[in-house]
């Protein structure tokens, strides 16, 4: 602050500026809070108008300056006092009343004016000070309240940050049971609520997930077991199909043999038929030959009859000769001897003829028997031919049937081959299913492990799930190797029974 000297008076404009400058802090002190509090005061509806106050002060200052210039320009002696007074006033000493140093009217008036000014200023300053103090009190109060509010905010913020960070940290650590139970400030209460709701929902979701994981574990276990059993059964089916195929091949071979045998039998039967036909021809010839023999026998019989007749007549002639010889007496003795000899010859002839006749008769009856037998043989042969023809038909039917059977068996073979192919495809799919189910199982176990990392607290599900999760983890460390299903003639893989023993026997 520059000393108020005459330089300032000589150069009044500057002095005015100087005083204006000097008064400016006062005015700034007075007006600054006014201006700063302006909106509050305006909002509060206060009657004080800073603009008008400032304007009044400025006008007063201008008036004082004008008076000071008049005084300084007209008075030099009291000027010093005046200056000192002014300086004092400038220095803010408004308590001290202005002492008149001169008796001149003008200066007195100046001093009066100055006194007035001082008084006015004093009152103004007091008023302002009052106002400022009031303002300051109000500001302090406001600040205090603001500070308290800020502190509250900060504390609430810190509490919120601490609790929320802790909650988030616990959440990050997998603790889902840590709810934010301490209420936050109203600004953060909603966040707490949201956090708690989110946590509850997460916990519920995880609990659900655990429940589902348990169900999924058991179900995937079932699926895996079922897939294993299915794989085993598919392999058994494949083996059965192989056996069926082998049996079918054997049957096919047998049927082919049957067909060949039936065809050979048909050939043999045809030959037998031809032989039988030829035999019937032979029989016919034999019958004819027999007939010729019969005819010859009859002719022989007739001839024998003639011989017998001749013998009979010769015998009669010999008898008559004997009779004549007997009549002749002694003279006829020799003749009687001759007649007797002739008669004996005739009797032998008759005897021989009779024997021949009986022989011929026997032969004839035997020939008849032979004819009858040959005829029977012929009939039998005819029947045999018929039966052979029938047998030929049957054998041909058998051969045809065997051929049809072979065809049917070929179709059955094709079907079995297709079934085998499908079974292989099924087995491949079952393998994939098994691998997928085991993969699913291990995925679910990993999921269970991941979910187990979260502490669900007192809801109970997690505790209930915990021992259950252990079991599948221990039994299903490694997913079973995908089994290769043998296509033909392969033995069943030996790891199957071990898998079955794990408790899926009932499938």
């Amino acid at each position: 602050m520059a000393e108020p000297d005459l330089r300032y008076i000589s150069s009044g404009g500057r002095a005015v500026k100087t005083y204006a400058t000097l008064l400016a802090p006062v005015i700034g002190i007075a007006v600054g809070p006014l201006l700063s509090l302006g909106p509050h005061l305006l909002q509060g509806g206060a009657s004080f108008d800073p603009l008008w106050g400032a304007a009044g002060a400025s006008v007063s200052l201008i008036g004082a300056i004008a008076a000071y210039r008049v005084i300084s320009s007209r008075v030099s002696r009291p000027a010093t006092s005046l200056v000192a007074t002014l300086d004092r006033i400038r220095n803010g000493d408004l308590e001290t009343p202005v002492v008149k140093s001169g008796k001149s009217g003008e200066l007195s008036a100046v001093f009066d004016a100055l006194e007035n000014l001082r008084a006015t200023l004093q009152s103004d300053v007091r008023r302002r000070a009052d106002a400022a103090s009031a303002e300051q009190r109000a500001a302090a109060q406001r600040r205090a309240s603001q500070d308290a509010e800020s502190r509250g905010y900060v504390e609430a913020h810190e509490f919120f940050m601490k609790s929320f960070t802790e909650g988030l940290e616990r959440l990050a650590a997998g603790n889902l049971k840590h709810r934010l139970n301490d209420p936050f400030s109203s600004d953060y209460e909603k966040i707490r609520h949201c956090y708690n709701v989110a946590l509850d929902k997460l916990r519920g979701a995880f609990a659900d997930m655990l429940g589902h994981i348990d169900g999924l574990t058991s179900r995937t276990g079932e699926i895996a077991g079922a897939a294993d059993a299915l794989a085993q059964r598919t392999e058994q089916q494949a083996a059965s199909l192989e056996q069926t195929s082998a049996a079918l091949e054997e049957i096919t071979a047998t049927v082919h043999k049957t067909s060949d045998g039936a065809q050979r039998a048909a050939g043999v039967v045809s030959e037998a038929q031809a032989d039988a036909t030829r035999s019937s021809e032979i029989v016919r010839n034999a019958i004819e030959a027999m007939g010729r023999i019969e005819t010859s026998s009859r002719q022989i019989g007739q001839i024998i009859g003639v011989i017998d007749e001749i013998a009979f007549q010769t015998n009669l002639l010999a008898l008559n000769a004997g009779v004549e010889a007997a009549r002749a007496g002694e003279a006829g003795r020799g003749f009687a001897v001759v007649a007797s000899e002739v008669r004996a010859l005739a009797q032998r002839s008759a005897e021989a003829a009779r024997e021949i006749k009986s022989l011929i008769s026997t032969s004839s009856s035997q020939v008849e028997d032979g004819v009858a037998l040959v005829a029977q043989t012929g009939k039998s042969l005819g029947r045999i031919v018929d039966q052979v023809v029938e047998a030929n038909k049957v054998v041909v039917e058998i051969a045809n049937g065997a051929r049809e059977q072979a065809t049917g068996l070929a179709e059955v073979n094709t079907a079995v081959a297709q079934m085998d192919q499908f079974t292989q495809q099924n087995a491949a799919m079952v393998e994939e299913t098994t691998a997928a189910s085991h993969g699913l199982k291990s995925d679910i176990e990993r999921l269970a492990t991941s979910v187990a990392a979260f502490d669900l607290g007192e809801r109970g599900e997690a505790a209930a799930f915990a021992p259950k999760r252990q079991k599948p983890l221990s039994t299903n460390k490694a997913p079973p190797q995908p089994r290769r299903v043998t296509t033909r003639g392969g033995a069943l893989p030996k790891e199957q029974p071990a898998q079955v023993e794990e408790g899926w026997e009932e499938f």
Partner: protein
Amino acid sequence: MAETISRVATSEAKEFIAFHIGAQTFCIDIMAVREIRGWTPATPLPHAPTFVRGVINLRGAVLPVIDLATRLGLMQSEPTARHAVIVVQSAGQVVGLLVDAVSNILTLTQDAIQPTPEVASEIARTFVKGVVAAGDEMISVLTIQNLLPEPVLDAA
């Protein structure tokens, strides 16, 4: 035969014609026999006795034929070509005797012919003069005169 001839030579031997009727053998004196011939169908005579077969043509002469089996009271025979007719002559009568077969010419001495047993009936003894035992068979010697029936004799 030679034996028979020798026997004839040593004793009063006679010759007989032996023949069969059924299973029996009979014989008659050969001196009564005119000839022996085969059977030819005879023409029956009305109202003739049953043992008269009928008449046959013997070289132009009508010859009555007597069925000897019927005449002797045996089974009537059915004559065939092998039956024989012995033409006999007795007391001027020529008659044919139908027999089954002429078997032999016997030469018998008188002592070989044994008389017909007394037990036989009068008719049998009328016909059978005696019985000869020849080997294992018995031969009845017939009396020709008695064989011819009375009507025939009357007719003759």
